[in-house]
């Protein structure tokens, strides 16, 4: 599991690559801390190269959403493949996040 973070036009973008399973979740949680300082800037989570996500990963996404939204930030998801999309659908996450 690898994450890449970049700032671009007032957006905070994090790209995920690989499997976000339970084993990977604690490191990923650390990686995602940088997004907590969003200060109203929108966040884009790029899932184009994310192969897999388990509930541990979903929790990280939900945790981020709960922190960012009170600060006036939007959290967008993008690039999910069909299988991932199904997981997000099944868990109601597609209605929580905004899809690009």
């Amino acid at each position, binding site marked *: 599991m690898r994450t890449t973070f970049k700032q671009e036009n007032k957006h905070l973008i994090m790209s995920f690559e690989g*499997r976000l399973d*339970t084993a990977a979740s604690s490191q990923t949680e650390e990686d995602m801390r940088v997004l907590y300082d969003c200060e109203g800037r929108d966040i884009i989570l790029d899932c184009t190269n994310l192969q*897999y996500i388990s*509930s541990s990963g979903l929790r990280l996404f*939900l945790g981020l959403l*709960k922190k960012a939204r009170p600060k006036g930030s939007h959290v967008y998801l993008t690039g999910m493949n*069909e299988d991932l999309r199904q*997981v997000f659908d*099944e*868990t109601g996450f597609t209605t929580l996040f905004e899809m690009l």
Partner: protein
Amino acid sequence: MLIVAALLLELITAVQYFSTRNGITHKMIEMAHRDLSKSSRRAALKRGVEQTVTEMLPTVSRLTTQNATDSLYLYISEMLTMQKEIVGFNYCIINGSEGEPEGIWIYKDGKTGMPTEQIFDFNFTERSWYKEGIKEDGFWSEPYLSNYRVMLMSTYSMPMRDENGNPFALLGADIAMRDLSALASEIYDYQQRTFLPIILLHSLGLLLLAFIIIRGVRNIKRLQVFSAEKERIANELNIANRIQRAMLPKTTVLPEHSNVELFAALTPAREVGGDFYDFVVRGNKLFFCIGDVSGKGVPAALVMAMSISAFRMMSERDLLPDRIIAQMNNSLSRNNDYNMFITLFIGLLDLNTGKLLYSNAGHKPPIIDSQSLPIIPNLPVGTFEDFDYTLQEITIPKGATLFLYTDGLTEAENDSKKQFGTERMQTIINNTMQEGATPEKLINRMTEAVHDFVGDTEQSDDLTMLALRYMPKQCSSDDTKLHHRLTLPCDINQTTRLAEWIDGICESAGLGSSASMQVNLAIEEAVVNVMKYAYPNNSKGEVQIDALHDQEWLKFIITDLGLPFDPTTLEEADTSTSAEERKIGGLGVHLMRKMMDSISYERIDGKNVLTLGKKVIKRE
């Protein structure tokens, strides 16, 4: 009372016996004297009778051949009245009207003395006066009792013969054995004089006897009721004994992989007792206990039954020893009106590591090899509610023997009131250990030693022993038998290994990438749940995953020895709520359900067994 009555009866019998005996002796002497003086007279009498019969015979014979029966009877009657000594004549014809012998007795009536006719209505041919009389010319019969008069008689018979010498009729003359009958009546006379006192004494004796019998019968009845009751109780105790034995483990043979040799023995002092032991292997854990309920007999047995089932129930819930004891203590203390208590030791041995968790409630410290196991005594179960029992821990070295016992062992007494004691016990343990003997041998030897020590003295307390030896073997590799088995240590960083393994299985089962991902997701969630909840706070343990598949289904069986944990009953996340209301958690279970086609949970032998199934839809 009984003795007095018996003596009295004895006395009465003696008096009667002597009076009768005296009477007879007295009369015998008298008769002997009389007979001496009479013998000549008797001979004369006999000759007279013989002469009369001989003289009568021609007339009787003639009247018989003339068939002049009336004249004949008249003639005999006339002769009878003239003969003072003769009491009667027997007259018979051998060929009667029916071709059978017929006969008549013409005798002097007892009251009037007048001749009376009586046709024989019995089989007189068997009488010697007839049988012998028709053969001999002149036969005196032995005295016999007359059929028609109460009288002892002797008969002189003579046959009448035709010209060929064949007898056709018989005449007999009877004389009374007056002497004999007189003798008898004289004896009775003598007795009658002593009759009243004897009767009185007899009545008294009988009265006494009746009294004794009535009392005796009453006592017997009471005794019968008592012994029936006793028998009933004995029966019930016998059944209770069997029930109680059935409560104990039926075998001391543990599963092969359990790394432990174990043996136990219980000898109750009475039919039922308050000692107990129990053990059960659940996965890689051995729960065991030994207990001693205060008191003996039925009350102790009832509490014992309660305790052993409580232990079994709570060990099934995988509680730790101190918790099991605390709960038993609370339930017993609450309703302990009779102040019963139990000394109890509970151990929980990890069969893989030798780690022993234990808690003690006032029980004698078990012996581990040659030392006492370090124990905090706490309090016996049933004394104070909410007492905080301590959990202790020790690692049992390989090959070590743990010996548990109740005080029936050390306090076994011989007839000089000496106790078996811990020293003797320890010596036997040491000797047996040195030989490397099995727990069974140790207990058998200890039992023998106690028996030798106490000898014939009655066993005063229940005697219970349990010994176990920790013998870890090399891990058997079950894994190679099943191709699709993965055993993971309890560490969430192992999920990557899990994913690779699942991918391989999905590949060989012919699942597409989407289905593979779904299976991956569900199994990961399940395994992570086990690691988090069945083994909380990073406790050590393993999760075993078996995969089976056929044409239709791909099944995963996830097994662990952790705390009971049933994910299927967990509350699922509500996926319709907004982000703010969303709880973090419950997602895993939700995903397991959504991604798989079947899910079921069972708790088997102390194991959590979760089965997840996915229907196989082959790739195009």
